[in-house]
């Protein structure tokens, strides 16, 4: 909470406090001060590598050992706990960008919706403070291996500022992994949607250019504002843009259509946006060269979606990850769309499907681990099983990208073993008991 108060005092202070706040946070999580050694799993490192029989050491919340068991001389005294899971698979915690998890509990109940603020341009509203660590949905998501989420405001032209959370913590201060990581722009649509008798017609949006112009001018005015030494009247919208211009806050631009994408890329260049990310990007193949040249990464539209156009190849959304990888575009996967929060638990299977449709399995894994971390700017902390990173990982009985075998044995967030039960599992157990059935 100190962090909010100090927000007003300028960026240097915020940075300092952010650092302090975060290290404090980690201390709390790791107060148990335990060390754990996991032996025998097939480690999917997240960077494309596999260690067939791995030894993974966790100490002070971080990974202090990741190597092949053969290379490791077993010294049980070095670790408080030894977990032997031979034949099982270990993974870095999966990362779900661009998600309203923690902000929306029940879509149909207005009182539980905190993702979409009134107003068109509201970069100052922050998911940070609305994020509900006690959402009943969270335990159901992390028990499938998704351990990190970018809680993201929705709607409007600039929806607000997202933060990245571990799916574990007493409150948002505990849970936050990266505070105020990005603003989110919904790029103007080239088409307006019109409905008639069950047919949706997209007609040209005649205001497209002027809407893009508005965005441009907002950025210009905000930049001018941040250059003034002494601000007489605070404008919270512009204040929220300061860290965008320093490059500390990323800019996520949500767009799908080819014309929108190229217009957004032009905007990125024109405004010299330091850390741009495109979100959705259904037509990314058409601008792939630009994305590679300008090193703009993509948070790809949900894999389990229908093609956007009737004439598109039936499996295009499934194959798109492979096709983009071929072009050299850096991308990760997400769960934007209907049933967004609760469907996050299916993120691993999107990677599985992209592997079925051309992507190498470890490459597919990257798209929900290391690449996601890179795109979110948290690759130094998480995203792979590498020494020095936070021990945010899990072990599954089998291939975690296939639903038949995605069955978590243990999971850790910042080294803390987390509870894999949930409201749903409790009900399951209760009713199996009611009918005298055995849980296998």
């Amino acid at each position: 909470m100190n962090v909010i108060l100090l927000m007003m005092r300028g960026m240097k202070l915020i940075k300092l406090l952010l650092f302090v706040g975060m290290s404090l946070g980690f201390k709390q999580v790791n107060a148990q001060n335990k060390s754990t050694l996991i032996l025998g799993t097939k480690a999917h490192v997240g960077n494309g590598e596999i260690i067939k029989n791995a030894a993974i050491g966790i100490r002070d919340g971080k990974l202090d050992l990741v190597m092949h068991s053969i290379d490791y001389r077993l010294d049980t005294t070095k670790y408080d706990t030894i977990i032997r899971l031979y034949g099982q698979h270990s993974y870095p915690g999966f990362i779900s960008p661009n998600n309203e998890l923690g902000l929306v509990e029940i879509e149909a109940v207005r009182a539980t919706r905190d993702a979409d603020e009134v107003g068109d341009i509201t970069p100052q509203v922050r998911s940070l403070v609305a994020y509900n660590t006690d959402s009943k949905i969270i335990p159901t998501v992390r028990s499938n291996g998704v351990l990190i989420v970018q809680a993201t405001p929705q709607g409007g032209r600039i929806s607000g500022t997202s933060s990245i959370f571990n799916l574990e913590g007493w409150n948002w201060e505990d849970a936050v992994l990266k505070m105020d990581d990005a603003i989110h722009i919904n790029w103007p649509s080239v088409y307006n949607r019109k409905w008639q008798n069950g047919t949706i017609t997209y007609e040209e949006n005649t205001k497209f250019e002027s809407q893009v112009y508005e965005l441009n001018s907002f950025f210009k005015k905000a930049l001018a504002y941040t250059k003034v030494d002494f601000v007489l009247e605070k404008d919270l919208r512009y204040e929220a843009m300061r860290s965008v211009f320093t490059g500390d806050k990323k800019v996520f631009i949500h767009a799908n259509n080819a014309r929108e994408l190229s217009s957004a890329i032009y905007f990125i260049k024109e405004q010299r946006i330091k850390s741009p990310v495109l979100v959705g990007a259904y037509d990314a193949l058409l601008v792939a060269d630009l994305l590679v040249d300008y090193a703009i990464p993509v948070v790809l539209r949900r894999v389990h979606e229908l093609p956007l156009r009737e004439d598109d190849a039936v499996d295009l959304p499934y194959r798109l990850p492979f096709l983009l990888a071929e072009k050299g575009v850096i991308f990760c996967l997400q769960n934007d769309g209907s049933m967004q929060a609760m469907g996050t638990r299916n993120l691993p299977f999107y990677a599985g499907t992209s592997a079925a449709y051309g992507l190498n399995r470890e490459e597919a894994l990257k798209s929900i681990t290391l690449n996601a971390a890179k795109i979110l700017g948290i690759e130094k902390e998480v995203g792979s099983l590498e020494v020095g990173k936070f021990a945010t990982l899990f072990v599954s009985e089998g291939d975690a990208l296939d639903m038949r075998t995605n069955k978590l044995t243990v999971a850790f967030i910042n080294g803390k073993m987390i509870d894999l039960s949930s409201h749903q599992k409790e009900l399951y157990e209760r009713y199996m008991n009611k009918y005298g059935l055995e849980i296998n």
Partner: protein
Amino acid sequence: MRFIFLIVFSLITFNSFTQITFPVNGNRNPSNTIFAFKNATITTSPGEVLINGTLLIKDGVVIGVGSGLQIPSSAVVYDLKGAYIYHSFIDPYSSYGMPDVKSLGRSPNPQIESNTKGAYNWNEAIKAETNAAELFSADLKSADGPLKNGFGLGIVHVKDGIFRGTAALVSYDGNSDNEALKQSRVYTAYSFDKGTSRQDYPSSLMGIIALMRQTFYDAQWYKTANHEKEINLTLDRINETENLPRLIEVDDYLSIYRADKIAKEFGFDFIFKGNGDEYLRAADFAERKLSMVIPLNFPKAYDVSNPYDAMNVSLAEMKHWENAPFNAAILAEKEISFVFTTDGLENIDQFLPNWRKCIEVGLSTEIALSAVTTNVAKLFSLTSIDGTIQKGKPANFFISSAPIFENNAVIYEQWINGSQKIINNRTTIDIRGDYDLNIDSKKQYTLFIKGSVNELNATMQDGDSTIKALIELNGNQVALSFSPLNQKEIMRLTGHVSESKSRIWAGNGLLSNGDWVKWGAIKKADFADLKKKDTATKTPLTRGDIWFPNMAFGSLTTPQPKNMIIRDAAVWTNEDKGILKETDVLVVDGKIAHIGPKLDLSIIYPKKMPEIIEVDAKGLHLTPGIIDEHSHIAISRGVNESGQANSAEVSIGDVVNSNDINIYRQLSGGVTTSQLLHGSANPIGGQSALIKLKWGETPDIMNIDSAKGHIKFALGENVKQSNWGDRKTERFPQTRMGVEQVYFDDFYRAKEYSDLWTLYNAKSNRDKKSAIPPRKDLELEALVEILNKQRFITCHSYVQSEINMLMHVADSMGFKINTFTHILEGYKVADKMKEHGAYGSTFSDWWAYKFEVNDAIPYNGAIMHKVGITTGFNSDDAEMGRRLNQEAAKAVKYGGVSEIEAFKFVSLNPAKMLQLDHRIGSIKEGKDADIVLWSENPLSIYAKVQKTIIEGAVYFDVDKDVELRKQVAEERERLVQKMLLAKKNGSKTQKPGKREKELYECDTIDDEGYEVN
């Protein structure tokens, strides 16, 4: 007045005069002048042409037509040398002179009853009482367009409502409404569009269809009923007009099938006012001997110059653009009787050009002409006119400069009821040509007059320079203005064309300095018509292939069943044998004939072996086709009839849309059978359609004919409208308490209804004659079918209390819930469901999207299964529908169901729910050959469909899919090039926009007909 009566009386003896009831102000002006039109080329009826003919008319009637006719000396004679006479066109589908139809748009508040005042029908969209003749009032301003395009008459009605009342024949002239009105009850008009009605019911196409059927039944019953309780002027009118022809407007060719089904049910024929895509199924319509009114609303080419924009135009739209002008020619080829209307044109001036386009692409001039004259009269049995120019017939005709089929033909005059309307001046002098212009004997120019007779343009040559000039011709007065070379000032010349040959002009000119001068011009060359050259460069229209369906991933022919033997697959039988390794499956005549390892065909067919294709499936997995118990794909215009709490009368079967791309997409995921369910907007929803995904076929063929009836019920938040906004709080029920009472009330009503019929049917034939039969009620009939175990319920359900409630209601009323669908709290009452004998079709892992799914758990399927309930996973979602195998795999993850049992969740178990397990759901000899070949274990996330086979025909093949993609890309590119060329050649274009079908889910409740932005 008395004086007039006397005159009228005295005139009766001279009965050759036409009489009127109207008084005349001032002196009479009897219209007994004879007009003679000589030397014209007269088309007396399509195909009958008189060259150098003479037409005599008097008082609006043709008194003679022929060649070499004696022209009475008293006649006013017009010499029409070079001109042509045709019968005025008749528009069969117009709203000329009708009151404006004003739409109030969508109502934010519920409107449960009709807002029409008076003793009319309960539903506002049933406007059968509307009588166009009574509402008609000439509207001369809007007559100009039709007149210019050849139309002198139209059959008009008010285009509003599902029943639109009667249409009237009127002429487009303006003497008086009484004279313009020719025939009052020509046809009765119908549509599948509720129009301006804001009444909630019907909110969907299927509701409109049900309402139409119920209204016809009501009218039948109303004839026999004593009217103690109700006088219904609307039903009265329906009965009064039942012998008139019936015309229905439809918005696509699929609705022709839908309307024709209704017509067959009630034993009449509809004439169909189509939307221009009838060519897509012309052979079917010919077989059914349908008649059509077709528009000439050819779409403009899309402006595809920006490739990004062009991507949003679907192949279906492009293909329709290419073939739309061929519609009439194709219908004519199939000998379908049709007539043309101007309806649907953006601008009525497109009529003649588009009509000529039909001729250009192969329609005979004779049929083209009859489709606006004689055939209109014949189709609607017009009494006063027959579309021909004949002695004794009304004189309705027009004069044109050239054969009306030719592009340069200009209509000069329309003569309607014998009165003249000048459209273009017939006597305009053709001054086009090259002239030597001389001003004041000092300055010489060469003047070029070009353009059309009515739109001249002029240029002048001064030495090597060309100067633009303005020219105007009024009668024989000519005015020319221009700026001489190197001058700003404008020089103006006026003068007259000296003789009819227009070779010499002379007059005065005003110089810029104010001096008057003399000028003159002499023609040195006639205007050379460049038209011939134009047509030479114009690319002829070419017809594209018609695919089934006519869109991306369609084919020239639909897949046909083939005999095949699939070798060495891992066969998931869904029978006791479980999974058989390296086993062969023989498919013959669409059925599974043999299953076994290394089948020897020579043993199976010792005598004569039919043609059998060998399919190598080594390493592949073979399963029965996936069955989706709960789908909303392939539905036209509304998945919910949300206007009433009970809509058992509506049927998805009436609105199957066989052109939904999601059919193909689901085939690619191994789905072969789907139950297309009504939504969940009301406690008693509508009847289901059970279809096989036979991509390319019509809904009739997709429909599983042997399937029993099914119907959707629903409970919970949707039926009590919890999440529909704060205004939707009026329709009963609004609580779970009310829901129970809806069921009780409706089933008691159904029982009473059934009793009424039982009593009536028990009567002797003699007694029946004197008794009034009960009113046929489509809603209650469906409920009676449930009570008689002829119709099976699939009930949308979430929380345990309501599930329990409905089973109690069912038990006490004597029916059964066949399947609970969604059933996300089924795990809480699984024992009770088992006792009741209900099936459970649930989602693998959906929850938390609304309050009532807070206790939904992904283990639900596993628990129900383990308790002993036949359990399935369904999609309710077009996207999930194509990977139901993955959803089945979640039963392995959540609750540890075995793989074999999990796969049954999406195959055999839903087959049982659909009461179709005798035909589908397992690999068993004698069952339908609905088979999927997978690249690996179908429950694996890495599994991909290789082939989807329905009744022995391959509807999806992974290799053919690659070809189809190529075909789509090539066809798109071909059409893009064609459109670019059309644009280059000056065709008008439209901006590309995207169109797509809404994806329906259970709670999609968009109202019919209104736009939502």
